[in-house]
């Protein structure tokens, strides 16, 4: 708990590093020379990097794999050689074959691409130095946030630039479908894992041994995405525990002294896949990854995607995470190479750690002014819809509100990049112009770029509106973690029948529990979250806490109203979900017409999926097998 909760005490005190734009040098010197330059990264304990073939043979000769091969062979009656061959084939399909020449090729082409797409790629160099230090001390696991396909190429590109050992990256098998590209990625350090291999002991064993061998021997940092997949909504996803379990195992079993886990936060000012994601969430299926698809995506090259901020967080020692949480003696009585289900103690430890790490990612996400604007514009959009007012916000009003929100965000400890030396009106207008696909200024009013009256059918119109709304929502979501806890509290105050502390807490606890599939809320931390929320609202003068009661102050009304309406779309999403299940009528679109739904966001499959999971968890609905 220590390292996060202490920071949370006063978010204003959070010290964060400065950024350097790494593209600047690329714009001023030869890309070719850069791609061919001498690359000599420091390694863990001065080890020599290991050939991919040697790595494979270490895995195939490992005790763990031998054990499982024997077991599978006994269970299935197949010859051990046969099983061994299968293991070898699995490994062949999985393993990376990192080649410096491919990396150099990427270094060259990505330089070109990045310079066209982005204004800057900002990296905290102190974080890089910490990483370099960490790599020499203990095996390192890199945990970047996942918002774009770009992420892992970007990571490798940065590490190459700073002369740091290139990571091996766990990638989903779907990439392999892209023939040429799949192999290119493999040669730049990706290894491929099947999306599901539930009961396949052999597969699991090869996979876990492969990852552990790389990690234990410190041949390369292991990189994977804790969220498992790209977040289409810019909200952090509930962490997946499989790989985290695997990489923590060598520490828990004493095979290494410690492991450094480095959360990396990659924030995009404009996400390449913006519209794609929105469509996907509306049920237009995800296009299959294909090489030709990638080329079609070329048109994205002609647009301006602003800047990227990559923040390498403080390395987290697994040893210190586990201190006092896990009794490592539990591995004393069974040979360590015999795979066992992790004990409950370990499962809950890994789960808690995962949440903590995702929160560490969230904390260092850089928020651009657009995040504030999108939040304000969305709220306004929803109000307009209901009230039937003139659409949009007056530019000056938007600017004024944005400044108000900026100050609040800062007080909540957000990592906000708002250029203070530029007049707010300029900040706002430059933000708006970067996102002109989503927003437009019309007669001095800023409105979401939802088309009206052009399309043939009302369904289509709704759909195209929803694309815009969902895209904006995803930008708003970037700031969710900042105000989530205060917003839950604000909603709880609204929902509670009195101001009594206990009552508010109960309603907070209910909301928090309901939304635990939706947002990153550490399991079992209800009290801490409640305290944190109170602390922030009190600190900003929005709330007074007495012995018994929580009272919203005069000037706090605005804050509370804002916070509550931030959560509203989600609340309604969950209500709809409930109603739907009562009505057995899955046709959502029709529901929207009579104006019964205020929030187009409710159409998001992500919200639907999460709410269904929550309702299942809470026992409000039951799964009946057909």
């Amino acid at each position: 708990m220590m390292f996060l909760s202490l920071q949370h005490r006063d978010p204003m005190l959070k010290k964060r590093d400065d950024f350097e734009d790494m593209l600047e040098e690329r714009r001023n010197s030869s890309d070719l020379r850069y791609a061919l330059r001498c690359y000599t990264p420091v390694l863990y304990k001065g080890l020599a990097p290991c050939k991919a073939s040697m790595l494979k043979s270490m895995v195939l000769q490992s005790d763990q794999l031998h054990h499982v091969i024997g077991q599978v062979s006994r269970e299935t009656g197949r010859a051990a050689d046969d099983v061994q061959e299968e293991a070898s084939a699995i490994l062949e399909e999985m393993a990376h074959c990192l080649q410096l020449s491919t990396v150099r090729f990427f270094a060259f082409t990505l330089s070109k691409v990045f310079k066209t797409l982005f204004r800057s790629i900002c990296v905290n160099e102190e974080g890089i130095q910490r990483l370099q230090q960490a790599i020499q001390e203990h095996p390192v696991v890199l945990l970047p946030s996942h918002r774009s396909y770009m992420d892992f190429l970007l990571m490798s590109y940065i590490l190459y630039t700073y002369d740091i050992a290139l990571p091996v990256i766990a990638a989903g098998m779907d990439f392999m479908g892209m023939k040429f590209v799949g192999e290119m990625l493999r040669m730049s350090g990706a290894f491929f894992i099947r999306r599901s291999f539930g009961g396949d002991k052999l597969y699991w064993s090869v996979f876990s041994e492969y990852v552990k061998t790389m990690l234990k021997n410190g041949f390369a940092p292991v990189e994977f995405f804790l969220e498992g997949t790209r977040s289409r909504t810019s909200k952090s996803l509930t962490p997946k525990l499989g790989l985290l379990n695997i990489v923590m195992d060598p520490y828990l079993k004493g095979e290494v002294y410690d492991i450094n886990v480095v959360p990396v936060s990659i924030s995009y000012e404009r996400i390449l896949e913006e519209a794609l994601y929105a469509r996907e969430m509306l049920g237009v299926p995800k296009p299959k990854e294909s090489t030709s698809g990638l080329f079609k995506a070329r048109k994205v090259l002609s647009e301006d995607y602003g800047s990227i901020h990559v923040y390498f967080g403080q390395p987290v020692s697994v040893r210190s995470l586990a201190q006092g949480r896990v009794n490592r003696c539990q591995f004393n009585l069974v040979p360590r190479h015999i795979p066992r289900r992790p004990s409950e103690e370990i499962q809950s430890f890994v789960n808690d750690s995962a949440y903590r790490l995702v929160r560490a990612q969230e904390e260092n996400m850089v928020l651009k002014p657009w995040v504030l604007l999108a939040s304000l514009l969305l709220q306004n959009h929803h109000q307009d819809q209901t009230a039937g007012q003139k659409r949009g916000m007056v530019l000056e009003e938007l600017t004024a509100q944005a400044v108000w929100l900026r100050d609040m965000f800062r007080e909540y400890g957000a990592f906000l990049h708002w250029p203070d030396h530029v007049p707010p009106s300029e900040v706002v207008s430059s933000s708006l112009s970067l996102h002109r696909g989503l927003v437009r200024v019309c007669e001095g009013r800023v409105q979401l770029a939802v088309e009206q009256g052009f399309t043939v059918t009302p369904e289509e119109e709704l759909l195209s509106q929803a694309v815009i709304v969902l895209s904006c929502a995803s930008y708003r979501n970037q700031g969710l973690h900042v105000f989530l806890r205060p917003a839950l509290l604000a909603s709880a105050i609204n929902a509670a029948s009195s101001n009594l502390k206990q009552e508010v807490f109960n309603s907070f606890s209910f909301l928090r529990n309901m939304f635990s599939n939706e947002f990153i809320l550490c399991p079992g931390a209800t009290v801490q979250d409640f305290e944190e929320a109170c602390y922030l609202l009190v600190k900003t003068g929005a709330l007074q806490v007495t012995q018994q009661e929580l009272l919203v102050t005069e000037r706090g009304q605005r804050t509370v109203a804002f916070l509550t309406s931030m959560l509203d779309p989600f609340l309604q999403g969950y209500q709809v979900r409930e109603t739907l299940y009562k009505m057995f009528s899955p046709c959502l679109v029709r529901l929207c017409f009579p104006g019964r739904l205020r929030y187009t966001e409710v159409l998001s499959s992500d919200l639907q999926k999460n709410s269904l999971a929550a309702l299942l968890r809470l026992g409000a609905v039951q799964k009946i097998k057909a």
Partner: protein
Amino acid sequence: ECVEWEVTDGGGSEIMKWNGWGYSDSKFLFNKKGQAEFTGKRYRLSGMIIPGLKDWMEGTFGANLQHKTPATPLLTSSAVQPATLNKAFLEELKSTGIPFSHDAEDRVFRAHGHCLHEIFALREGKFGRVPDMVVWPNCHNDVVKIVELACKHNVCVIPYGGGTSVSSALECPPEETRSIVSLDTSQMNRILWIDEKNLTAHVEAGIVGQDLERLLNESGYCTGHEPDSMEFSSLGGWVATRASGMKKNIYGNIEDLVIHIRMVTPRGVIEKSCQGPRMSTGPDIHHFIMGSEGTLGVVTEVTMKIRPMPEYQKYGSVVFPNFEQGVACLREVAKQRCAPASIRLMDNEQFKFGHALKPQVSSIFTSFLDGLKTFYITKFKGFDPNRLCVATLLFEGDREKVLQHEKQVYDIAAKFGGLAAGEDNGQRGYMLTFVIAYLRDLGMDYYVIGESFETSVPWDRVLDICRNVKARIIQECKDKGVQFPPLSTCRVTQTYDTGACVYFYFAFNYRGLSDPVHVYEQVEHAAREEILANGGSLSHHHGVGKLRKEWMRDTVSNVGVGMLKSVKDYVDPDNIFGNRNLL
């Protein structure tokens, strides 16, 4: 071999240091020229100059000859708590004629073992709770009388053998309000008989290791039990702590050597009725006694296995390119069950330490040869001087077999990249065993404190535990504000079929720390936690004492503790043997 034998007499205090290790005449010091020197005449190293030691101490610890921390030279009796005497007990004891004393010096001498905190306090002239008197029984019957009287008058008895404990076992519980009697067994030091037909010897338990061996050697026999403390530790102490000897591969550990034990308890005398080599008569009652750490009674007489003295002894050593290879070699040797009498593997830091303790070379030729050897190993064979490590070997038996055995072991070593590195290195390695304890006193003169501790661990864990515990020590020192990098090193000292005994050495320069002993204890505590978390045992042979008591429950389970408790409750319901070790 390395020691000039001498019977240590009862009081011991004159020829032994009262606030450090071993003989008063033997110690390391820096002479006027600033060179390290080992005084006295008892050891091979005695009277020699050790040129490398100063640099090693300065380089390893950042120690400085200008910064001294000398010990309080004399024991001031007034600083010792006055004795709480039980008059009635004393009167009756007098009538038995058994010698006793309540002299402050005698009492202080028996109030401690050799844990760092114990010696550190003595050097500062600080004494905590000490025994109120010392008795010197002369035989089994004397002990029976003393224990009867102790029970009658409710006096606490703490048995004292050689005083080499490193588990706080000899410390008097500060909360003890009764009169504490230290029962010193040193006068019970005779071999009562030798049975050459069955190859056993019946020995009084107060005899110390070197005397036992010397006396048996006179008849052409030996026990072969050689713990590192054998110069000073006693047979009774070995039994009470489950001791282990360097040459256990041939002779076995104490539990393998003991045929019969007599122990005096508050309930009476416990012993078996015959000397059959093995029995199936329920749980072996010897195993209640061995490891009881003075909590149940006093071991008075022991029948032990003896062996004819070996015809031939040969030392040896092997250099490995790294520790991993060395451990793999030891594991293979254990697998083939061909371990020599002793085989030990030092890590790189310890190899360097051993190197620093090389005495001044007398001839140019030897120094030339040394240079050549170094060149061969590091340049020609490509060993990294910062990674290589050394195994020391001791072979025993008849000449032909020893040579054959030697070849077998060197052949295995070669498979793991090991190079034979000569007898001399091996012999020096074993000599260091005896002088290393003296070295701690030198360190303590210059702000350096340290200690060793041990564990036993399955083979597959050996490398992991060595790495992790060493790293933990370094990290803890850093976290606790130690200003200089510590020495954190280990060696594998015993091999078994399924695992090994590992020793850790740990020392640091404490300049700048206000409470160095506390820091030291915190680090050692953390290191023990690390050992346990890595599948190591609480102790291989040092015992639990009071130092490691807190982990007993986790080690042997609740039921286990309950079993031991119920034995204690039956044997000693009034806690006469109240040293509070173990449970």
